[in-house]
């Protein structure tokens, strides 16, 4: 009888614990973020109430979110978002190919590393907006100019991620590869590159941040007729003094950037967890 009672209690406890702890975890994860958003909105509202700037220059959070609600119901917004996201995908995709190839070559070939290793870091620190005058001169005010700068913005970070990942592969893995009889190709394919993957993903995360910044700079400078984009929307809102549209667009840009960054962070954490490098 006692045994049955104990068993029932354990089952009840086990049945409840996961959902309870799941809700608790979700709350533990979300409350600091919600609090931060609440604080930002409160400060924004206080500044608005202070009358520091007229409302047509500095709208309230309510006006801005009302505008955002209106904006996302228009086809023009989704067309602008689509253009910007497709540019980001194409630019980042090209940067991924270029950065990865350069990274592998530089990590593998010592003379190439001596020649361009520090140049890659130099390019990474160079503000991508500084490339635009040159890009516009070369390509004109068109898509190529934007993509050129997005690639230049993101590829060095990706290449550095590859180089750093390969440099930090534990020497024991290379020794293992040699003992197992791996040739140069299988050493890279089966051991070095998979071992470098977590650092590579960190490089991709950083590359994405640079690509997104470069793209926004590009869309502000290179406005193509009949091709709405988030950057162009920002510029037009400024020109027509539509402050609430401007802030609403900025919120969209921030949210898109954060969502993609969260995807990379999730991929990075999953990767590390699958290798036992992270427990939570």
């Amino acid at each position: 009888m006692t045994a049955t009672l104990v068993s029932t209690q354990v089952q009840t406890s086990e049945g409840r614990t996961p959902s309870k702890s799941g809700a608790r975890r979700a709350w533990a994860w979300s409350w600091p973020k919600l609090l931060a958003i609440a604080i930002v909105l409160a400060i924004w509202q206080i500044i608005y109430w202070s009358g520091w700037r007229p409302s047509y220059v500095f709208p309230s959070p309510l006006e801005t979110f009302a505008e955002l609600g209106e904006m996302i119901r228009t086809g023009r917004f989704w067309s602008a978002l689509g253009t910007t996201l497709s540019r980001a995908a194409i630019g980042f995709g090209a940067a991924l190919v270029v950065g990865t190839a350069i990274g592998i070559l530089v990590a593998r070939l010592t003379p190439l590393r001596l020649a361009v290793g520090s140049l890659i870091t130099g390019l990474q620190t160079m503000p991508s907006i500084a490339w635009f005058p040159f890009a516009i001169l070369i390509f004109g005010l068109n898509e190529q100019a934007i993509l050129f700068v997005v690639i230049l913005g993101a590829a060095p970070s990706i290449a550095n991620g590859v180089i750093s990942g390969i440099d930090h592969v534990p020497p024991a893995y290379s020794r293992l590869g040699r003992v197992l009889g791996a040739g140069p190709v299988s050493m890279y394919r089966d051991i070095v590159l998979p071992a470098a993957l977590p650092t590579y993903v960190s490089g991709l995360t950083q590359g994405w941040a640079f690509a997104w910044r470069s793209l926004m700079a590009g869309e502000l400078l290179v406005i193509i007729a009949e091709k709405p984009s988030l950057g162009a929307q920002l510029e037009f809102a400024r020109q027509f003094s539509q402050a609430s549209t401007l802030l609403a667009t900025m919120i969209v840009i921030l949210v898109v950037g954060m969502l993609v960054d969260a995807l990379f962070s999730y991929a990075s954490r999953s990767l590390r967890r699958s290798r036992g490098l992270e427990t939570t």
Partner: protein
Amino acid sequence: MSTAVETEHSWALSAENLTKEFGEGSQRTIALDGVTLRVRPGEFVTVVGTSGCGKSTLLNVFAGLDDPTAGVVTRGAKPALMFQDATLLPWLTARRNVELALKLTGVGKSERRSRAQELLAAVRLEGWEDKKPHELSGGMRQRVALARCLAQNTSIILMDEPLGALDAMTRDHLHDEIESIVRDRGLTVVFVTHNMREAVRLADRVVLMGSGRILHEQEVGLSRPRAMDSADVAERAHDLTARLKAGGTVLRGVDS
């Protein structure tokens, strides 16, 4: 040096007057200083010495990971090497770690899975094939490493203190398993350790090293099975420890 060894002509492994130096000028260190060691096919040799005595360097030279500065190494087959910390690839499951060794040995894709399964069963890891290294205990990881060595389909296995980090009970189990696998497959083993009882427990012959030289070699001659805590193993280990100390080195932390 044992005369029995010198009358053999066909060695599984041999090092003749081996020297290995690292660094140059004032930084130069001599890791191996005229080492001659010959291992018979099917023989289990343990090499014992303090840290820095050159035993791991000798193993690396045997494995082909380091080239000797002088001297000649001959190998009857390409050896497999079992590392101190297992060195399993953390992104691969236990089975895929073994499959990688099979792949690099030239085993076709269709055969790899079943062969890996068999090898993991041989080291008593049925049911753990799909676990990643971090999901396995230290002893299990070393079992996977042993299966990976067997996957290389070689007759020579070099072991670099593979059980040094394990608890006593797991280590005893692995001693039994290594001994049985080595005997059943007729493998030649060079096993490096700093634990004299372990050396006596496993070996046909114990080689004592100090300051890059071989100080003493001795056939163990005890009947098998042996146990780490048996009186004859303890006595032999005690004698060998005394010899090692007399050879000019002090063996720290030795379990004798």
